[in-house]
């Protein structure tokens, strides 16, 4: 089984458009597909594929959080001084409070507390589910409590369970739709993958972020290819990106997807464009890219 991660440094370049159409096209060609939505902050892959039938569900406790026992806290403020995330707050003269949204569970506060008033424990994170989509293949995703989103631990959990389920189902390909950015959740998505599809667009901002993503991908030694989405509105920039991808990055150019309002219509209808309108220019481009990916299997 090949594990393929769809990533992009910049948000909104079309990761989900590529991942969903790739999955649907390959499934129609008889490839055994399994997918995971690793962007738990904006789980758009499952939304695009349509809610399916839940075939597996488990409680996840992927993150740890500090809690202050008000009966023991003497308001000394030592925890506030050491917290690397600014998650410990002590209003003037009052007892400390842990801001769970900012706590990463390192536990350093527990070590400096003179009265043992702080405990770090596994927090309830949410539910990890596997849904069978109407296209016949499955998608692993997380339904999470607010403030428990997109930690590296969580993405790693979704990916590991998704991968195991994909293997159990005898899948040929495991497609992971990653979060935007290059931080912990993205690193957790990329590590251990066989190939990264980096989706970009011909704009200076997207080029800059592709460069940053490329450095991460190279650091982890994963081979990668580039898809230029929304091509057509800046010919010069597009050419310079293409040259740079093949000559300097040394990544494969997988293809270009032209600006096409059928993609927007498909987005509004929440459908993979390849299913919404297989004859659209963007769908034809996606088909070519999918055929290249099929060649890797």
């Amino acid at each position: 089984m090949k594990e393929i991660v769809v990533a992009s440094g910049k948000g909104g370049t079309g990761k989900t458009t590529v991942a969903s159409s790739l999955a649907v096209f390959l499934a129609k060609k008889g490839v055994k597909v399994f997918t995971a939505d690793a962007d738990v902050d904006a789980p758009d892959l499952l939304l695009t594929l349509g809610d399916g039938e839940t075939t597996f569900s488990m409680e996840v406790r992927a993150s740890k959080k500090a809690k202050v026992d008000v009966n023991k806290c003497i308001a000394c403020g030592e925890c506030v001084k050491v917290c690397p995330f600014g998650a410990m707050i002590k209003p003037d003269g009052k007892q400390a409070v842990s801001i769970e949204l900012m706590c990463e569970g390192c536990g350093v506060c527990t070590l400096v507390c003179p009265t043992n008033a702080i405990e770090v424990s596994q927090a309830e994170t949410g539910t990890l589910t596997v849904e069978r989509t109407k296209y016949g293949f499955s998608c692993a995703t997380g339904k999470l409590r607010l403030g428990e989103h997109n930690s590296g631990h969580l993405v790693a959990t979704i990916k590991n369970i998704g991968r195991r389920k994909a293997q159990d189902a005898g899948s040929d390909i495991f497609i992971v739709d990653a979060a935007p950015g290059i931080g912990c959740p993205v690193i957790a998505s990329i590590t251990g993958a066989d190939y990264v599809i980096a989706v970009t667009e011909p704009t200076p901002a997207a080029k800059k972020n592709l460069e940053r993503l490329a450095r991460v991908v190279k650091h982890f030694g994963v081979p990668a290819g580039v898809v230029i989405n929304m091509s057509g509105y800046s010919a010069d920039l597009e050419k310079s990106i293409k040259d740079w991808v093949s000559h300097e990055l040394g990544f494969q150019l997988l293809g270009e997807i032209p600006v096409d309002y059928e993609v927007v219509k498909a987005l509004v209808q929440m459908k993979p464009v390849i299913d919404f309108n297989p004859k659209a220019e963007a769908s034809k481009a996606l088909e070519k890219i999918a055929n290249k990916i099929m060649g890797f299997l």
Partner: protein
Amino acid sequence: MKALKMKISNVPIVAVTGGKGGTGKTTVSVNLALGLVAHGLKVLLVDADVDGPCCATLLGKKLEVGEEVSTFLPVIDETKCVGCRSCVEACHEHALVGLQIEIPRLFEELCSGCKACQIVCKHGAIADGRKEIGFIYTEDFGDLKLIVGELKPSEPRSPIMARATVQKALNELQGGGWDVVIIDTSPGVHNTVAQALWVADLALAVTEPTPLGAHDLNFILDLASKLELPAEIVINKSNIPGGLKDDFFNIAKERKIAIAAEIPLDNELLRSYVSGEPLLKKPVNSPAARALSSLVHNILNKFEGAGKYGQR
């Protein structure tokens, strides 16, 4: 939650955020900053999207010299370590690994720099080392100052980098002379975003009129509401065919929050985005430029009543 927040500064801080990626956070941030400068304000623009900071790119500026941001990294003194494993047990990230009587091994990439290991070591065997995690760049444009946090690729600790960037801006505020702060956040609703929202007085949630935009908008509005941070909605690309603006009016109505602006996508905006020349840098009369200008007025009016300007 709000009661816990110490008032950081009298200068209003606006966080531009949005849940989903690619909705136009940076476009709104940069144009809002320039629009406010055009009204005579001194604006601090903070790029806290440390994974992919693009404010400088949109301003057509190449960042030159950055200030290094680093975190603690344990350096084990093998002559002092007795192999007691207390550091191994204290490390929640499992960055230190070792058997009894062994000198622990450090997996640098897992270390969050929390110092737990150093605190528990009774033998003084853990010395201070540093790990570079990114850079903070400062660019002065006169009435506009840009502070950019940039995470080093392959480093995972975005929240720490975002926190350092926000802190740098707050330190700058201490010096006085600023009228408003605009913070451009990361996409998503994780800790990196919370670090920026925590210090803000208002969140502008930039979205696009698609079902995915609406879905992810609800996430970020929930986060703002958990932080008791007032929020308003900016509908970007408001003219896309078949767009579902009604959904957004319903979200706004249900949550009793305002729609601060509707920005149509036009050729002028697209050109400015591709060329690195912000739309509000020079007077342009296009539908998008007019919408952005009205957002600028909207923000001006909002904080003017509070009498926060004119502290220079």
